[in-house]
């Protein structure tokens, strides 16, 4: 089957996981679809690359938990090579040489918490149970198209009633708990439950990943839930790692899309969305090629889509203003290490099962909060919060025999660093990260073969994500649901007819979830029928 620059039913801009999901769903419904990816490989921020020969890095995004099970089923991703390996534990080293661990066995975790506080061990069970319930309560919201509360159309009213009925179906106690999760800071929320500082620190740290908030910033408790919702094949609360790295997820979605007939073009950078009479008609590529289609779907973030690809004259002024003020604040960096051996933690010396899980560098609430304080004024954290995993411990194929790869997610590294990012600052940032790791794993410097340091500016340069923000827009209360990405345009449509959006900048937001991609496809198919 050959398709030259002929007509397509739909053009998808960007071959990240959301773009690919949209493409797969549209192709599955019989549409002729082409995905245009700027880089030489699909995945966007979900890619595996062999930056250093023999060592495979999940360069940006490194774990998965939110990928919607319906997508895995609908697209038969396992048959296209998706295999998720569980990431079972989290160890948080402390300054006094002790640690706090969460193990896959609930009883063992409770005993571990009890080692720090009996009271917290008791609360932990109830907390876990309630958070599980809260995740269930939020699930239907994630899978629904946000209704427009200002609209009186039957469809939006039905949507609003559905949201209302959903909240009414919760008990008063659970509704109030959910409301608190939506509005509180993670530190305040956790203060209501626990007394052990390191427990609150490590939990709240998972609440601030990817955001420009600290543990004491109201709104961060919601992200706590976002990350708690991890479900792999229906099993709640488990983080996972894709065999072959995060890129394997994108590749499996890409293969699924191709199996339904979608075309995926690499090194095909879109420079402009063509419009005629306020309607999208196709795209122009950077090399001058033009492609036509009545439907154009952008998986890029809202700023890149509307401020660079679409002509401002095609958009209402209010809308352009909304896009400009949409907060996309990059707050994190990534350091990938090729290692000759394994890190030796002071708190848990030697090789152990803890190295097959996450290592969270969040020794105290104050540590994480102060890391945030640095970033607020335009500096990277001198003592950053870090989430570390060793993919080669879970999937030996990621590194040569006997060698290892280490993925270090680092926060905070503000995209708006004073004076802008440059090579000197990148080096200083990389050194701060290694120093901070060395506090807890003193042998780290001796085992580093090579390192890749990625600042938000690097992430933006490579992936195209504005400000290097991994969620394509801050997950703050005023940028969620019917306000994401812009009031009145939260249903994947845009002011340009025929132009749609499907990226993480849309409801329900970031993480390797694919929900935006799927919902956008369903909306497009619904509008077409």
């Amino acid at each position, binding site marked *: 089957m050959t398709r030259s620059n002929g007509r397509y039913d739909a053009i998808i801009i960007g071959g990240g996981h959301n773009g690919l999901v949209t493409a797969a769903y549209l192709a599955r419904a019989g549409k002729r679809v082409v995905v245009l990816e700027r880089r030489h490989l699909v995945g966007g921020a979900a890619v595996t690359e062999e930056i250093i020969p023999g060592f495979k890095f999940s360069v940006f995004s490194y774990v998965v938990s939110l990928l919607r099970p319906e997508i895995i089923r609908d697209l038969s991703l396992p048959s296209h090579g998706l295999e998720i390996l569980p990431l079972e534990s989290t160890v948080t080293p402390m300054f006094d040489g002790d640690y706090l661990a969460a193990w896959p066995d609930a009883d063992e975790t409770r005993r571990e918490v009890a080692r720090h506080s009996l009271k917290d061990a008791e609360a932990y069970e109830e907390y876990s149970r309630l958070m599980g319930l809260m995740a269930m309560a939020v699930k239907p919201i994630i899978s629904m198209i946000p209704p427009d*509360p200002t609209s009186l159309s039957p469809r939006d009213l039905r949507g609003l009633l559905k949201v209302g009925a959903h909240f009414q179906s919760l008990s008063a106690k659970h509704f109030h708990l959910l409301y608190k999760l939506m509005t509180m800071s993670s530190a*305040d929320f956790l203060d209501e439950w626990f007394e052990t500082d390191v427990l609150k620190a490590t939990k709240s740290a998972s609440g601030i990943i990817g955001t420009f908030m600290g543990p*004491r910033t*109201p709104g961060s408790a919601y992200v706590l839930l976002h990350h708690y919702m991890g479900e792999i094949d229906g099993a709640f609360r488990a983080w996972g790692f894709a065999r072959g790295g995060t890129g394997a997820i994108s590749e499996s979605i890409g293969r699924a899309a191709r199996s339904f007939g979608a075309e995926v073009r690499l090194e095909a950078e879109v420079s402009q969305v063509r419009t005629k009479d306020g309607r999208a008609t196709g795209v122009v590529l950077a090399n001058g090629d033009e492609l036509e289609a009545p439907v154009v779907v952008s998986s890029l973030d809202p700023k890149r889509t509307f401020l660079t690809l679409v002509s401002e004259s095609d958009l209402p002024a209010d809308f352009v203003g909304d896009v400009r003020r949409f907060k996309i604040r990059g707050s994190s960096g990534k350091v990938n290490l090729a290692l000759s051996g394994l890190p030796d933690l002071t708190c848990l010396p030697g090789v152990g099962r803890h190295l097959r899980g996450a290592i969270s560098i969040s020794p105290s609430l104050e540590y994480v909060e102060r890391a945030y304080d640095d970033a607020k004024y335009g500096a990277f954290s001198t003592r950053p919060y870090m989430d570390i995993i060793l993919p080669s411990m879970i999937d030996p194929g990621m590194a040569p025999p006997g060698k290892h790869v280490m993925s270090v997610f680092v926060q905070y590294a503000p995209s708006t660093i004073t004076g802008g990012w440059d090579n000197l600052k990148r080096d200083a940032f990389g050194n701060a990260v290694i120093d901070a790791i060395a506090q807890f794993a003193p042998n780290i410097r001796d085992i580093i073969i090579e390192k890749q340091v990625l600042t938000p500016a690097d992430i933006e340069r490579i992936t195209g994500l504005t400000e290097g923000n991994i969620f394509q827009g801050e997950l703050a*209360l005023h940028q969620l649901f019917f306000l994401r990405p812009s009031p*009145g345009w939260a249903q994947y449509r845009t002011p340009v007819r025929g132009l749609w959006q499907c990226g993480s900048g849309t409801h329900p937001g970031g993480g390797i979830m694919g929900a935006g991609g799927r919902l956008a496809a369903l909306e497009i198919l619904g509008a077409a029928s």
Partner: protein
Amino acid sequence: MNRYDAIVIGAGANGLATAALLAKKGRRILVLERRDVAGGTNATEEFHPGYRASACRDDAGWVPDALVRRLQLARHGLHWLPVTAGLVSLTADGPPLATYPDIGRTVDGLKASSAADAGRWAAFTGFVDRAAGFLQAAYSVRAPRVQSRALGDLMALAGLGQRLRRLGKRDMMEVLRVVPMPVADLGEEWFSLDSLRALLAVAGTRDVMHGPMSGGTALVFLHQQVGQPAGSIGVRRVPRGGTGALASAFAGAAREVGVEIRLGADVSEVMVAGARVAGVRLTTGEELGASHVISSADPKRSFAWIDPVWLDPELLRAVDNIRMRGSTARVHYALEALPRFQSGGLEVPRDALGGTMVLAPSIASVERAYDAAKFGEVPQSPALSLAIPTLIDPSLAPDRRHVLSVTVHHVPFARRGGWDRSAAELLGDQVTSMVAAVAPDLRERTLHRWVLTPADLESRYACTEGNLSHGELALDQFLFMRPTPVSSRYATPVAGFWLCGTGSHPVSSSGAAAMLVTRELANARE
């Protein structure tokens, strides 16, 4: 047979307004006040012979028109004085930047610093007016119950929804978007001048342990705008005689309808018999019977008066979790003459002096103050709000003498090392030097200085942790969550025990809850 139908605890504005409204309906009401003066946190106090200050706050706040009319407060001495300016930014290097009740005047002044900001001022105040108008509508009815299926509750929700819809699509979305936002983002969306943004940042972090970059602080800002006339941002509402005059007017209205007010009567227990309130016991051991006890004290204090055997552990936990992190200190100066205030070498115009002068150069400076406070340190350069009440109301000081009242923001109640007199005076010295930077002759004009730390506010005015709003204003402590979900409509699980203070909806220290409480009480009797 009880001598009283209801006992109200606390003779602040909320307690007195509630008492007056109930007595007007023919109930026999007793108000018990711990201190020897009425007024609570609204008290006007003589802190130096002949010098009086509104001890806790400079703005008496929003008093619903219906309440003013119902209790004929004007007849009881409430007289609002005109205030010449709203918020006035003073900095070491910039000219004074003032907002006035008159939009045109403000715009003219802003033009000198930023034409762009001047151009946006009218649109900004318009949006703020509409958003605050919506809040006012929500504050004029009891807290909604989002979850209830009862017809009345659904109708009330629909009514608020309708009120929101009336704003139009664009504004409705804007209100929903702005309320949970950081006030810093709000300021940055509208204005380019650091000093103007900082004015909003200071207002948005008043009495909360949050910085302007924290979500929900836009709500704190909008909350203070409720009841402001159109176009006015941050204009103080000042009764003649200080904030205490508001409480006095409520007291006058209450006494007229037979309310008995007992001063120096400190409650030690709210007595419960058979799961129902029986009355109160005073620290002297005296017992007073009543079938209703209505507390205007903060929720933590209020529930602590009840034997925990009558309370569900879940409720006790919820009360324990209410955040009341005191973050405000006050410093009052008795001045033999008006100091000369300047900003960037320019004299501050006389009518701007009558506004609230704010010392905070930027959003970042306010945020940095919060950074210190959250770790239990007194910030090096806290944001200050200055008021000279005697420019508006000369009766507060001897002839041609003045009072300067300073609100110090982000002063932690939970100071590392705690509070004592020397720590308090250290804070006073710090404030004096900061003010002296814009009023160099402050020290030689000062006859006396009175420092109230958060710890002082707690012990003197009986608000836990010195939190003047009886629970931080935050999204999770708002509407149906305030003070706890089960007590958000003033009734508590103990029959006959009610709340009517600032800790309840709608976060008012000026009596706004009183009409809602009395309505709930009336419904409960039927």
